[in-house]
């Protein structure tokens, strides 16, 4: 009833290949996009700057990682390092006088090249062994950033981002930073949905499912795996630059540490591997749930509900958060995306019980 199917016929291949075949889905996406675009008008600076903006950027990061982990099946536990390369490269390029737009692309390219070099390990090892190889990348990049003052910015290892403008729009106000980040996240989302329908996307899926079977049907594993690392690292690198310029505006090595890599993997897994909506939901959950819980618990404590020490108070949200992750994954191992899908399928045929698909 809600996702009305009656009267929706596809009479051409083109119509059948639409991204959103059901009108409700289409209207939902358009509505959300308009809401997102107008967010600076109706969301308070506190929520725009501390919730929506980081959510949008981390969704872009989760999309970049899920291309590699979800579509191509290559585990990557050092993705924060890829973003670090992008962030540091973009700042140094802008400082060297290169326009921001070009610096963004170049920083993506630099991340892509370095990411693909480490991705070379994927040509020989798989699964847990690949995790080790990408962890090595994380620690190597961390080490280089910390130990080369020319990169990290000297004694205190803090680099402020210079003032820039993007296509003549100065990236200074909160709204402009938000729109730039949103534009990049939307671009990645559209790219991701379309890449699944290209020969490259199908080759990635074939590699994920069985690489030598893919080789038998004519997919070159060498090329495809490297391309997967290259594409994903490019996306991650630009996202890192966006993160630096639009959100942190001062980068330190700790912002791209190992724990951030793990957070990114958690976003992808909790959201649902290889899913667009899962990347958005997973990023939102992993990023914002601890903040919401911390404020909730502090609010309860202030009203005298939980009379406990500050130490316990600080750990309580983490316990709830951990329990929630376990709960969600027990309830639906395929992630938040699958939970959304179940709800949608239920309403697709509501008030009846069974769908055809």
């Amino acid at each position, binding site marked *: 009833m809600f996702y009305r199917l009656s009267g929706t016929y596809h009479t051409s291949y083109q119509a059948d290949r639409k991204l959103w075949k059901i009108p409700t889905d289409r209207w939902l996406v358009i509505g959300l996009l308009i809401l997102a675009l107008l967010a600076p008008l109706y969301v308070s600076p506190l929520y725009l700057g501390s919730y929506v903006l980081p959510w949008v950027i981390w969704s872009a990061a989760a999309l970049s990682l899920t291309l590699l982990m979800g579509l191509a099946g290559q585990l990557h536990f050092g993705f924060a390092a890829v973003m670090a390369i992008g962030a540091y490269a973009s700042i140094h390029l802008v400082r060297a006088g290169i326009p921001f737009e070009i610096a963004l692309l170049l920083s993506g390219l630099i991340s892509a090249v370095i990411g693909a070099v480490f991705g070379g390990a994927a040509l020989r090892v798989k699964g847990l062994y690949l995790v080790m190889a990408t962890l090595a990348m994380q620690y190597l990049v961390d080490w280089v950033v910390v130990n080369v003052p020319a990169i990290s910015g000297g004694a*205190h*290892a803090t680099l402020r981002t210079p003032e820039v403008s993007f296509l003549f729009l100065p990236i200074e106000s909160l709204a402009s930073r938000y729109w730039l980040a949103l534009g990049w996240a939307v671009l990645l989302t559209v790219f991701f949905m379309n890449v699944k329908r290209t020969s490259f996307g199908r080759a990635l899926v074939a590699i994920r499912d069985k690489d030598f079977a893919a080789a038998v049907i004519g997919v070159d594993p060498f090329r495809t795996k490297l391309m997967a690392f290259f594409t994903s690292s490019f996306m991650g690198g630009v996202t890192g630059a966006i993160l630096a310029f639009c959100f942190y*505006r001062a980068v330190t090595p700790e912002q791209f540490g190992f724990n951030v890599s793990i957070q990114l993997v958690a976003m992808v897994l909790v959201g649902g591997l290889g899913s667009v909506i899962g990347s958005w939901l997973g990023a939102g959950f992993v990023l914002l749930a601890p903040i919401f819980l911390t404020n909730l618990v502090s609010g309860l404590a202030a009203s005298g509900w939980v009379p406990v020490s*500050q130490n316990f108070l600080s750990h309580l949200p983490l316990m709830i958060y951990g329990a929630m992750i376990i709960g969600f994954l027990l309830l639906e191992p395929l992630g938040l995306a699958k939970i959304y899908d179940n709800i949608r399928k239920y309403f697709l045929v509501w008030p009846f019980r069974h769908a055809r698909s």
Partner: protein
Amino acid sequence: MTFLRKLALTTALVAGLSAPVAAEDVKFGLLQDFTAVYTFVTGQYNQGQQDYLALVNAEGTLGDGNTVTAIVRDTGNQPQRGIEAYNRAKEEGAILFDFLSTPVSAAILDQAQADKNVVITPAHGRGDASDGTVFPYVFPMLPTYWAQAAALIEHMKETGGLEGKKIAIVHIDSPFGREPGPILEALSKQEGFEFQAFPYASPGNEQSAAWSEVRRYRPDYVLIWGAGGGQAVSVRTAIQNGIRPEQIHSVIWLAETDAANVGPQMKGVKRFEATASGTDHPIIQRIQEKVIDAGKGSGDQANVGNSYYNLGVATMAVAVEAARLGLEEGQPLTGETLKAGFEKIAGFDAEGLMPPVTYTAEDHQGGGAGRVSEWDGEKWVPVSEWKASYPELIRQVIEESAAKYAAEH
């Protein structure tokens, strides 16, 4: 009805007149890391801060019925959570912030300066923020790591001389661990000693490789520069490698907990301290009497008087003194008047808990005085007087670094 309304109006008017200035609730944002990296210090430090603020409210230190409230949140050492907590506390009216986390402080520094909110960075953050001309709203407040290194070196000079001696600096491999580098570099030329750095990987649970190198180097003195669990490992591994406890000199991050973890071997180890430890101080005793015994303490009573607890008390003592002086300018207290209040503080020593500090528009470090104390098996015993070591050199390093920062923007 009309009479009643009149009566109500008059009462309201009289009430309004009799209290010409409404009592103000000054808000401090203590948005710290309770759950990730700084857990070794935050619990006790924050407990000291909250207990001291409770004492201030109980004693009415701020006058005119003014009170001070702490907004306490966990940031997990994550910059994005720190930014959220900062923005929220700012909306709730906080004008002073203490993040006790280098990455979070770094991410918020510029924003806080633009918002004209005071950020205190005691024992963390950028040392060059001591230059108030470049960082008008940041107060490192206590001796920077540079001043700490200088104090330890001066203590070595006074106890055994430096000419021709060898100093090993064993540090965590991070920007924090490398902070003493420039000071050692400058002082080695001036005082004629040689030094070598031995980094170990973060978080420092395993340091045997670094220390076997140190053993080969045969140093006369050892500086250990780490924090948290790694510090006890440093002391233990040093002693295993034939270093005598008396040779070991530590940065401020070595406390009672570490001594308990090391055990009896710890006797003789020295550290820098910015505030006195123990309960034998007027402020701590009043906290015990009016806050802890009154059941208003914010944590485990056994922590009262610990090094980090007293450090927290001292930071808030200075901040409240600044608020008191700032309120003299008139109400309401804002970030700007609070900053002015800080810069009026002269010779304040928190009733002997810390060395006298004086902040000026140029010097936000407060002079950089500290002392060295030694673990006697039960407690930290001071072995030097409160003083600032090599202040000209420290000031020069601060100004050079701050100028570089200013030039970049």
